[in-house]
């Protein structure tokens, strides 16, 4: 099992379960690791097995499916054909937007079909991701800075930010659908008459606004937790040395909160890349608000295997983004979430 793999360096827990040994490792220590390893295998086995069943099996199954042809009526002969191996046809279908033609071979997917929507769905997904995460980061940072100050009613504000987070996304979507209704409060408040879910850009901004409202609190709380780990003495020392507020923010707050901030941004980015509920309920994916996840769901009833190929592409995109974050931008999630307990208060 995974617990046996590799010579991964094992760091001692901060407050060791067995008395913490400093200095060179003795023979007894090795035995202890072995016996703890046996314990760990037993304790971890249920979780690993459960996740293997609910995640690893579907991944492998989806990849296998994505190389199969979908069963269906052959438009040329009018007969029902079984699937069979498809090679990379399903992937070509999406990425090159080449659908199989009635006469055999492939043609460019006609507009309006799901096959023709791959790149626009990808663009929409990335638009939502970049814009919502940018807003959430800036707004969340600002909210965290306010909540980190001491003032009367601070605990009330901290409680209030949990309210949007606690409301289920499906309810959030319906709520904003109502707010953005033609006769709804958004139009009345700003004295506009926008058909919010009726054309492309208002629909996109409606999704962005609802998502920012719902998830900024989560961002703010993660950043606040990072802010609170900065010792106050650092700020006092900087003040004594005559640093301005802006200098203190740029030279102390930002670098010290960066690890927490990067983790928060990574979490939110991966969440936004798989966005489904909000646009699905708020706009139904109309007016170019179809994300990759919505496209997969729309495809399922037209053909499992093509949907499997698309979901595999989505998975790879998300995996690549996570990899880039961890590798190049220094969001060391595992270290942060910490097997070591280092960097604790």
């Amino acid at each position, binding site marked *: 099992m995974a*617990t*046996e793999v*590799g010579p*991964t360096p094992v760091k001692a*827990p*901060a*407050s*060791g*379960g067995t*008395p913490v040994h400093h200095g060179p490792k003795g023979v007894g220590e090795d035995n*202890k*690791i072995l016996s*703890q*390893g046996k*314990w760990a295998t037993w*304790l*971890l086995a*249920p*979780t*690993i097995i459960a996740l293997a*069943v609910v*995640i690893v*099996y*579907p991944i492998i*199954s*989806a990849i296998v*499916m994505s190389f199969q042809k979908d069963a269906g009526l052959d438009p040329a002969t009018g007969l029902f054909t079984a699937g069979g191996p498809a090679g990379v046809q399903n992937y070509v279908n999406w990425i090159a937007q080449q659908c199989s033609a009635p006469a055999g071979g492939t043609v460019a997917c006609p507009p309006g079909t799901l096959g023709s929507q791959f790149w626009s769905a990808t663009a929409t997904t990335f638009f939502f991701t970049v814009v919502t995460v940018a807003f959430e980061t800036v707004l969340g940072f600002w909210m965290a800075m*306010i909540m980190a100050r001491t*003032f009367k009613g*601070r605990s009330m504000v*901290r409680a209030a930010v*949990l*309210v949007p987070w*606690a*409301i*289920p*996304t*499906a*309810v959030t979507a*319906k*709520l904003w659908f*109502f707010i953005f*209704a033609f006769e709804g409060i958004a139009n009345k408040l700003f004295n506009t008459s926008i058909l919010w879910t009726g054309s492309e850009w208002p629909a996109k901004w409606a999704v962005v606004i609802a998502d920012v*409202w719902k998830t900024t609190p989560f961002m703010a*709380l993660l950043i606040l937790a990072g802010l609170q780990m900065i010792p106050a003495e650092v700020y006092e020392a900087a003040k004594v040395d005559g640093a301005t507020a802006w200098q203190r923010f740029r030279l102390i707050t930002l670098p010290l909160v960066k*690890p*927490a901030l990067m983790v928060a941004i990574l979490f939110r980015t991966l969440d936004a890349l*798989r966005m489904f509920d909000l646009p*699905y309920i708020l706009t139904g994916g109309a007016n170019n608000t179809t994300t990759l*996840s919505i496209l*997969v*769901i729309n495809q*399922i009833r037209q053909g*499992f295997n093509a949907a499997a190929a698309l*979901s*595999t592409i*989505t998975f790879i995109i998300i995996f690549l983004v*996570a990899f880039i974050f961890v590798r190049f931008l220094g969001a060391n999630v*595992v270290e942060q*979430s910490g097997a070591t307990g280092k960097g604790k208060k």
Partner: protein
Amino acid sequence: MTAATSSAASLRAEQDRGRRKAQNKERWAQGRTYISAAVILIWCLAPAYWMVVTAFREVGFTYDTSILPTHVTLDNFRTAFDTSFGNRFGQALLNSIFIGVVVTLISLIIGVFAAYALARLNFRGKFLVLGFILGASMFPGVALITPLFQLFTNIGWMGTYQALIIPNISFVLPLTVYTMTSFFREMPWELEESARVDGCTQGQAFRKVIMPLAAPAIFTTAILAFISSWNEFLIASQLSSDATQPVTVAIANFAGAQPNQIPYTAIMAAGTIVTIPLVILVLVFQRKIVAGLTAGAVK
């Protein structure tokens, strides 16, 4: 002499002015904090408040803009539970509670053991396991749904409770393991050590000393797990039937008496019913929930 006193006086005046300036600056900064706090409060609460107010408005006053509700009625709550338009909101509430409880229990029971091992034991491949579980928590739901849709169609599980519970565990279990791991790491483990010195086995020490200490953390994790399961929509929207659909799906598909009319007030009433217990839970256990939310991510 006089020059000295006058210069001393002017010095004092100067100091006074400086102090007042600093005080004003302080007061101004404090004022800005309060204004910002008010903006945050309004931004977070106003839309939710609008849902609750609308839930109490008579249908004819759906688009009323008065801040305090006029034409108050409880009809919308009755309409929400009305089954004559094909809505099964009451059943959906029971479904959500059932699914949430089962998912939370399963995830906690196996997740707590994993978290204990990750927080307390030294073994090879720990980072690999942590990475695997973290990866699992970030996994896109759509990548699961296609194979599950086919599998459940083939074995006749479409629309059953187990078809909703099993995939849900893939979202909730990693969350449980992460939150519990960071809670476990902060516990006073000296107690376990002294219990072991007194002759307890590791298992006994875990059961008799650690579990009671961990009870509050387990409770918090249970709330987070339940809320996460309560929120689930993607899997449920595809794999549930009318009889097993949870509240999120019921609310998304809410139908009114006329086909083209959206029963907003009833939907807002349903939304209020679905949300209020969560909000109360969250407000009561605010501190613990914030600790749980941020523990897995930042510490």
